[in-house]
């Protein structure tokens, strides 16, 4: 199992550590629902050292990325970021990623899921063969820490150079923290304002400590992967292995906004066939349930006793104070307001289709 530079810090903070995608990561330091509330109300600090980080540069870096993934990289201005997917030839999702165009316009930076890093690098290197491009795995040479929550900017501004109020959502900049040059993006996986910070490896502890010291008076605390999952789910963000995986395409997942048809990406032809056929007959929807049980991944969904789908993720939502779930259901059962049942231990429990995201912060 791999460890990030901060593993001993998490253990000293009393974290419960778990194997997540081959990494020894903190799942929680405190009760998960309390941690989620801290991020919604104040701010939380996350070690994301397990995420895959890849630099892409060279004469044909842009053309390579256009082939690799679904979004239109040519339309990303310097210093901006887009969400995208890597597909296979069948149009099936291999990963969801963030593509950063360097602020100096001298290349790109791609952030990928920990559990898919090895496969993504394999796909990238295979696609790269046709291009004059360098794919550089920076996962070992860079650390990654996120601060998320409404107080993120005021806390981060105390330790980072540059005017953070000028940094737009899904934009990034070069800065210094503790005198060390690093990059910082206004991105995250919680539905709150916040930043993800990429520092040279070896500086993770100094940056973590600087954040903790700067945010202590504002109630900043460390947050584990358990609350991170609750927060992303409330905010309607997909998680690979749940809403998207080796059996889904981006259209049925409602991620067509991240697919741009003006370039020739891997999987495009297959997706065009899906479009021409009028879809796959199923759709990703949100559900809420006030039942005592929470709908969980894999539970069947029924309409009038007949199976119409299955649950992808289920969580107890501290923000909405109900059970929330995402699920693939037959298109004729996907309209908000549709009443369905989820089945747990042979018992049918009621739930209802609702629009997503479940939670949207006030801006």
């Amino acid at each position: 199992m791999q460890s990030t530079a901060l593993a001993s810090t998490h253990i000293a903070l009393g974290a419960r550590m778990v194997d997540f995608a081959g990494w020894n990561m903190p799942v929680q330091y405190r009760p998960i629902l309390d941690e989620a509330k801290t991020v919604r109300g104040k701010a939380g600090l996350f070690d994301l050292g397990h995420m895959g980080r890849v630099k892409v540069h060279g004469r044909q870096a842009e053309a390579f990325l256009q082939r690799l993934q679904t979004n239109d990289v040519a339309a990303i201005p310097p210093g901006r970021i887009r969400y995208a997917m890597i597909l296979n030839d069948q149009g099936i999702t291999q990963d969801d990623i963030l593509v950063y165009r360097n602020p100096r316009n001298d290349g790109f930076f791609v952030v990928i899921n920990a559990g898919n890093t090895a496969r993504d690098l394999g796909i990238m290197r295979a696609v790269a063969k046709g291009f004059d491009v360098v794919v550089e795995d920076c996962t070992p040479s860079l650390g990654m820490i996120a601060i998320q929550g409404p107080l993120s900017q005021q806390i981060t501004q105390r330790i980072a150079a540059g005017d953070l109020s000028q940094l737009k959502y899904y934009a990034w900049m070069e800065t210094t923290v503790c005198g060390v040059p690093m990059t910082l993006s206004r991105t995250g996986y919680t539905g709150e304002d916040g930043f993800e910070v990429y520092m040279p490896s070896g500086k993770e502890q100094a940056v973590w400590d600087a954040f903790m010291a700067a945010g202590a008076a504002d109630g900043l605390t460390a947050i584990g992967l358990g609350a991170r999952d609750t927060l992303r789910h409330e905010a309607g963000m997909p998680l690979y292995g749940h809403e998207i995986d080796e059996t889904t395409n981006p259209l049925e997942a409602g991620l067509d906004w991240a697919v741009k048809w003006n370039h020739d990406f891997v999987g495009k032809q297959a997706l065009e066939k899906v479009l021409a056929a009028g879809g796959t007959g199923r759709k990703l929807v949100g559900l809420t349930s006030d039942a005592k049980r929470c709908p969980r991944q894999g539970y069947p969904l029924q309409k009038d006793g007949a199976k119409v789908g299955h649950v992808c993720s289920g969580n107890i939502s501290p923000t909405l104070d109900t059970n929330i779930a995402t699920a693939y259901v037959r298109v004729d059962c996907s309209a908000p307001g549709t009443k369905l049942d989820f089945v747990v231990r042979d018992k049918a429990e009621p739930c209802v289709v609702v629009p997503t995201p479940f939670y949207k912060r006030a801006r």
Partner: protein
Amino acid sequence: MRPTDRKYLKSHEWCKIENGIATLGITDFAVSHLSDLVFLDLPNKGASVTAGESFGEIESVKAVSSLYSPVSGEVIDCNKNLPDNLEWLAQDPFNKSWMIKVKVTAQSKALIDAAAYETQCQAEG
């Protein structure tokens, strides 16, 4: 050392058999690893349970876990107040938080004593 007056399963259930009646529960190790408990589903009086099979479910904020029975037989009593007082599991897993009582017809061969269970917990960390 955990109580030596009973046996354990590697899946972290305990089982105390007196006069042919088994009292079942889960250990402090299970409770601390589950954390943030939200729901407990136990069988009713009169239900039958089978050694090695699930007799109920316990749900935490993030996951659902099956409870495995170390014995076969009929459920003759159920700790009805426990599902509404899940904090008892952290406070007193070995007494107050018993789950069901079973009239034993057969026992699992996988039951281990407290010392062997201790080793198991240390191995899991």
